[in-house]
């Protein structure tokens, strides 16, 4: 991994788990795959300290452990490390979809990496009962609750306490992470919400929420293999494939067999990955009633009760009359892949909002969230590919689709669907609004919005079928590419004015052109575009190809062609985005140090709860400045992270 990613991930680890963990993480990242003794040798830490740090990292799957050989080898997991920068965002995304309680549960889960359902329930109960800010993990490491995720530090809490009400003074025991959900919003609207304190009433309710999250794929059961590096997972799968799919002792030979090996390997990897998901239904016990929360989600399917799980049912011992009950021993974690899916939804909704209209974008959001439930990830590397496709057949693979009626069902009833729809000329006499707010009628209106999305030049939706009900899907791979291009264009526009963007789009559309062609097609003067073209080349957005007319390679006998390589620019901007995120984190630390005196004062146990008594006017002023600065930087951090999602996570390799 590049220097920038390493730097960013190390900073994120430091923010979340403190210096020791960051030190260990940096060592493992720097050394690469290595056994424990080798790592300790490469580190300046003592063996005891190093192991201590490593344990934390393993718990959060930030370092993966290879167990294929006798000695364990360690490797960092970039995906999970980068996800540390998204904790606040994840909680918010979940909260927006499944309510505040779900957001809080996910936050609890994120704070412990992975957890048993029973532990989760206990820990969650604790949040609301215990008066201790820092939660203690099973392995004894204390989590530092600091701002990366938009979580409020205690300093900030102090301020919000004295500015609005004495909320933090009253229940100072509430973990900062619970509050993080209402601080920052993606679209940047300033919403001040005073959310009432909610408690998950019972374990049963908590299980119902967890079940919904499991079903939607937000949380997934943890498997032994999740702690292995990807290469090990592959090796393991390959050994299995060689054992079971090929003759013993005869490694595959020739292109055909090698191809078959790859196919089997993919299949095996897919199978191993998805087997946990079956587990999620089989380990669920359903009671006599279905959960009452069927408005936003399809009612949970009744799982078959088989003998094995029947045993665990009685073991769990929860009163089951409220519906779903999960196996208390089930270990779960948040799926980072699902987070990308939700982030993609946010970006696509943003497009609809920008190019079509607000109401339509709300319909689009509801539509995309329905699709989300059918999509565990943006891109499946182990997807089944027909080994020898019929070239005459055009195959449209639709992974997820939704009908307009379903969209109308889940869409917030307060959305005025007539808004944003032009009067249909067929009903000029004004009887479009026949007033009936029935589901059928709303479905029709939803369909009109979705048709508008599909007719947009970006084709945000595509027609799937109309067997009785009209169904639609979304071409995600194409739109992911569009999002990349769109972000590149916006970056270019803000750096090189509109003309730069125009030239980039021109070259994207026409391919390689010499300067004269660029000028004539772009309808501008050559002397105007020359400096912009070369600046854009220097910044890496454009490239120049030389084609000599003869062997002398003299400049005057050479054709120079400008071109634009989207993937190159994407990679370039991705690196820049990682670097920018690292800089923002460093700046936050620097700002914190500048106000450290005041922050530490506010964090003192005797000051807490008595802010008005002990904090001077200057203290309050400085603390206010600090929290605003931090918030501003954190929001920016999240926005840069959105960009990383677009450039890296939504697309396949």
């Amino acid at each position: 991994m590049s220097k920038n990613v390493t730097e960013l991930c190390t900073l994120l680890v430091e923010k979340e788990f403190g210096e020791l963990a960051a030190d260990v993480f940096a060592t493992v990242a720097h050394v690469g795959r290595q056994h424990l003794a080798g790592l300790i040798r490469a580190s300046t830490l003592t063996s005891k300290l190093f192991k201590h740090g490593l344990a934390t990292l393993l718990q959060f799957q930030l370092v993966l452990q290879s167990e294929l050989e006798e000695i364990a080898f360690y490797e960092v997991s970039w995906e999970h490390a980068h996800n540390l920068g998204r904790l606040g965002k994840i909680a918010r995304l979940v909260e927006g979809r499944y309510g505040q309680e779900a957001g809080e549960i996910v936050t609890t889960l994120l704070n412990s990496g992975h957890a048993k359902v029973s532990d989760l329930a206990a820990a969650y109960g604790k949040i609301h009962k215990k008066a201790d800010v820092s939660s203690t993990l099973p392995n004894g490491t204390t989590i530092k609750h600091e701002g990366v995720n938009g979580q409020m530090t205690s300093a900030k809490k102090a301020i919000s306490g004295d500015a609005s009400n004495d909320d933090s003074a009253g229940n100072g025991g509430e973990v900062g992470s619970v509050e993080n959900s209402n601080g920052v919003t993606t679209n940047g609207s300033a919403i001040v919400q005073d959310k009432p304190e909610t408690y998950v009433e019972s374990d049963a309710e908590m299980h119902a929420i967890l079940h919904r999250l499991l079903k939607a794929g937000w949380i997934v059961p943890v498997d032994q293999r999740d702690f292995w590096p990807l290469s090990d997972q592959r090796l393991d799968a390959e050994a299995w494939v060689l054992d079971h799919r090929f003759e013993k002792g005869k490694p595959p030979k020739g292109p055909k067999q090698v191809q078959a090996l790859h196919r089997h390997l993919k299949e095996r990897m897919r199978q191993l990955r998805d087997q946990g998901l079956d587990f999620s239904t089989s380990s669920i016990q359903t009671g006599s009633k279905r959960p009452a929360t069927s408005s936003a989600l399809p009612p949970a399917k009744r799982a078959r009760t088989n003998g094995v799980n029947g045993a665990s049912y009685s073991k769990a011992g929860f009163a089951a009359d409220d519906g779903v009950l999960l196996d208390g021993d089930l270990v779960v974690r948040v799926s980072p892949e699902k987070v990308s899916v939700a982030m993609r939804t946010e970006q696509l909704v943003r497009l609809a909002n920008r190019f079509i209209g607000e109401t339509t974008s709300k319909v689009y959001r509801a539509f995309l969230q329905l699709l989300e439930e059918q999509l565990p990830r943006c891109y499946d590397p182990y997807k089944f590919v027909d080994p020898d496709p019929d070239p005459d057949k055009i195959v449209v693979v639709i992974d997820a689709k939704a009908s307009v009626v379903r969209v109308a069902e889940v869409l917030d009833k307060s959305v005025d669907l007539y808004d944003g729809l032009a009067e249909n000329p067929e009903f000029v006499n004004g009887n479009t609004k026949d007033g009936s707010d029935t589901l059928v009628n709303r479905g029709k209106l939803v369909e009109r919005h979705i048709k508008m999305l599909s007719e947009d030049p970006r084709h945000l939706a595509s027609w799937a079928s109309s067997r009785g009900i009209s169904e639609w899907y979304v071409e995600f791979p194409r739109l992911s590419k569009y999002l990349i291009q769109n972000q590149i264009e916006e970056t270019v526009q803000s750096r090189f004015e509109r003309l730069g963007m125009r030239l980039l789009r021109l070259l994207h559309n026409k391919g390689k052109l010499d300067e004269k062609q660029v000028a004539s097609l772009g309808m501008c003067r050559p002397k105007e575009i020359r400096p912009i073209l070369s600046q854009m080349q220097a910044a890496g957005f454009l490239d120049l190809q030389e084609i000599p007319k003869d062997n002398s390679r003299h400049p005057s006998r050479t054709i120079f062609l400008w071109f634009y390589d989207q993937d190159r620019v994407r990679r370039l901007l991705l690196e820049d985005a990682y670097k920018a995120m690292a800089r923002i984190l460093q700046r936050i630390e620097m700002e914190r140090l500048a106000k450290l005196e005041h922050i530490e004062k506010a964090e003192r146990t005797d000051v807490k709860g008595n802010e008005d008594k002990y904090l001077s006017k200057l203290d309050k002023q400085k603390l206010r400045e600090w929290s605003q600065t931090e918030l501003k930087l954190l929001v920016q951090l999240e926005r840069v992270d959105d960009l990383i999602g677009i450039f890296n996570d939504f697309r396949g390799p």
Partner: protein
Amino acid sequence: MATPPPPPPDTKASKMSKLDQLYEKCAALPPETVFHQRDLADMQVTDDSNGLLLIIQQMVASWLMLTLQWDGAPCWKIRPREVAAAMKTLVKEEREIYLAIEATGTQAIWTKSLKSRTGQISQTVLNKTLKHLQAKGLIKCISNIKFPTRKYYILAGLEASEDIVGGPWHGDGELDLDLIDAISEIVVRYVEKESWVEQKSAVNKLAIAKKRAAVLKAQDAAAANQPESIPDIESTPPLFRPYLGQHGFPLIPQPAGYKHYPTCASILDHIVGSGLLNNLTLQEQDLQQLLDNMVFDGKLERMGAMGYRTVRGAAAESRGPDDIGIANGFTEAPCGRCPVFSQCEEGGPVNATSCVYFTEWLARNL
């Protein structure tokens, strides 16, 4: 072509020389007409062909006529009398150059090709001669859009062909950017009117008012220094500000299945119909070039194979300053626009801790 004097009345014809009679008859026809011997004979100025040839010879010698070739047979064109008179005063080289320029017609000729075509004339002589000819008003200098640095010469009375001066978007050999801007403006306004609907309903005004109230409330809250209430750098989120049409109502897209998005042809009709073009002739392919370019510029977008729609807010942008500010998280942060970002490194001369751009940016809107 200089307009020939009106043909003298027939009564005077007998008093004129046969040469003049022939010239006037030729001049009565449209300029640039090519005459074959048969055409001239049909004018019945002379009694026999020998007489005619004699007169033609005289005219050629006095520069009133120009000999050309057509399928091996000779044919002729007349020159204006003033030009012929001027040519009489020219020296041999000047005449040679004039003939070379004349031969290229509306295609004009580059000085270098002129030099090679007229043989071994030195550069200085050529320059002097060209200057002299220009002073006499026989030729003019133009520039070619394909080779903007080269000097081209053409007869004073001719207009260079379109591939040299470059269609309606060019003026004086350069792109007429003002014209392009003006036409783009008309196009955007027209296309927006045709491709978006202004929503004139009270319900919606209410919605805007609600949104405005929400935004204002948020701003008030920000002013009251409540830290949680500043979730973003901009207190007014750009996406929630509806794009307004020409009458101040929010714009909504035409319903799905709308068939009447403006096409290149209909936009051209509108421009021509508006009468703003004066004497400029605009062809569909010229306009197509402009439209393509406006698509690249993010002002228009294609709807289907033929139609166009304005990108939401494109017209509002040209009406007022661009306050819709579309930027991503990267370019809004100081790093995205940092001129020394590549040197930025922890512990280096440029770093996040001592960054002046961050300080400046953080000081804004706090």
